[in-house]
């Protein structure tokens, strides 16, 4: 896969540069863009962004690895992230994580063989009033039950 922004992404990147008094401030948005464009933040993507911003790849890497949302390794087409913090746990999240793991046949951290799903346990998604909650790619799924999880996963299969 060639690591070069598409025209749309490049236009967005150029627009971002106008929004901050300092180029480095574009590092986080650029990493989001890279992840959207290339699926994950590869070493090549880090070198590419470093080149665009005129900073060292080490600096970009130091930032990329600090934050949990940047995937440094490929993830499945659907990244299923189930919250296991207190409000979700009080309403059965631990049990639901086991349920999802069983349905997908992978442990948290794993990706299904067909590359379609990656399962992660995450800390607080900030949606405690509609617990239990999971996030799949950009979308939240709230007030989860075993049945609703089955229906959601079935749709994505």
């Amino acid at each position: 896969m060639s690591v070069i922004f598409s025209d749309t992404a490049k236009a967005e990147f150029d627009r971002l540069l106008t929004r901050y008094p300092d180029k480095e401030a574009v590092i986080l948005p650029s990493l989001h863009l890279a992840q959207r464009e290339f699926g994950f933040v590869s070493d090549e993507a880090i070198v590419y962004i470093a080149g665009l911003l005129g900073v060292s790849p080490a600096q970009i890497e130091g930032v990329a690895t600090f934050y949990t949302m940047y995937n440094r390794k490929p993830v499945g087409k659907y990244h299923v992230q189930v919250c296991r913090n207190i409000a979700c746990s009080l309403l059965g999240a631990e049990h639901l994580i086991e349920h999802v793991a069983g349905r997908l046949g992978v442990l948290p951290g794993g990706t299904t063989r067909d590359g379609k799903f990656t399962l992660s346990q995450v800390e607080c998604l900030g949606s405690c009033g509609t617990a239990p909650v999971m996030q799949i790619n950009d979308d939240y799924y709230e007030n989860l039950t075993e049945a609703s999880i089955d229906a959601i996963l079935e749709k994505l299969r």
Partner: protein
Amino acid sequence: METVLTTHFADDGYRRIDTYRSFGGYDALRKSLSMTPEAIIDEVKKANLRGRGGAGFPAGVKWGFLPKDLSRPRVLVINADEGEPGTFKDRVIMSRGPHLLIEGIAIAAFALRVHISYIYIRGEFVREARILDEAVAEAYAAGFLGKNILGSGFDLDLTVHRGAGAYICGEETSLINSLEGKRGWPRLKPPFPASVGAFGLPTIVNNVETLADVPWIVTNGGEKFAAIGVEKNGGTRLIGVSGAVNRPGVYELPAGTNLKEIIYTHAGGIRDGKALKAVIPGGSSTPVLRPDEIDVSYDIESMAKIGTMAGSGGVIVIPEGTCMVRALSTLMNFYSHESCGQCTPCREGTGWLKKIVGRIEAGKGRAGDVELILDVCDNMMGRTICPLADAAAMPAQSFIWKFREEFDRHIGEQKCPYGNRF
């Protein structure tokens, strides 16, 4: 009851500028532009508007910390990181009333003579970031942002900036570092952000709800806002109730509403007819309360008097039958995961708390472990750059002080009496 924020939140169209304006939206901005910046700040001071992010610092006073010198540009940053477990109120404002926030930002920016502003929103809130982006574009198109706002000569640029998954970025100096494209490591204070903040410029960081209150204050006057709440604590608060209640959700209630009433009347009482075991009153870092302690006014001063905090307004309700060691273990996993690692007492302390509480829960606790936890907490509190170490130590101490027998039982029986489940 008078509502400040949520009056029209049930109307889906309210997130669009036309509907917002049909309810008088942006009239407060128009009014502000005819006032002096000092007069606006005075109204906010009179309103007794306390920061809604957790610390509860008076907003008008914070604004007064900006240097008088106007030779350097200033920055207004909106803290929309909302990462404290149990807290989910700002998301409601951003998704239901984004223009309320944008109008509040524009008014505050005018009052603070700021021309550059950023909404730092937690990275996971992709949908809310999109809603805000759309609302910001609408506000630019209507002349409420950008150059020469409403012909006043006042300019303001506003950008929505997504974080990338780090609880620590809710701390204002971490947030500033993150905004600048760095790791979200907290900075030593002083210098305070008001003198040296984002991009080295004088900076004010305010929470979403704090700024969303501002248009109402300008429209109705600070005294009227102050009258809704209690002394020193004006207005309403968005209170998020989660956990084992019949009606979890966000409730807008006057500051100083009774906590028991919040849980039993507004949130409908405890689920499945169970009894109440404990309440974490203001987000996961605030000291836990027993059922006999919750007949209390939910305001900053009253909560402090009973040794806890109203914090970010996140009430987490724990029902009978919950293992408190397991609940604490869940929290310690969180704080250990989220420590940025910069300060040793926090990096090591949160790790040890996770390890010790975890082994007690797993039935491998040792005699003296409870004292060890308290000792670790003592060595964390107040010894780090930012309050994350305290945020981990406060629940650990309070769970032990108030539910000590459960820890002792785990260690004595060498197993979890609740079967290691919630």
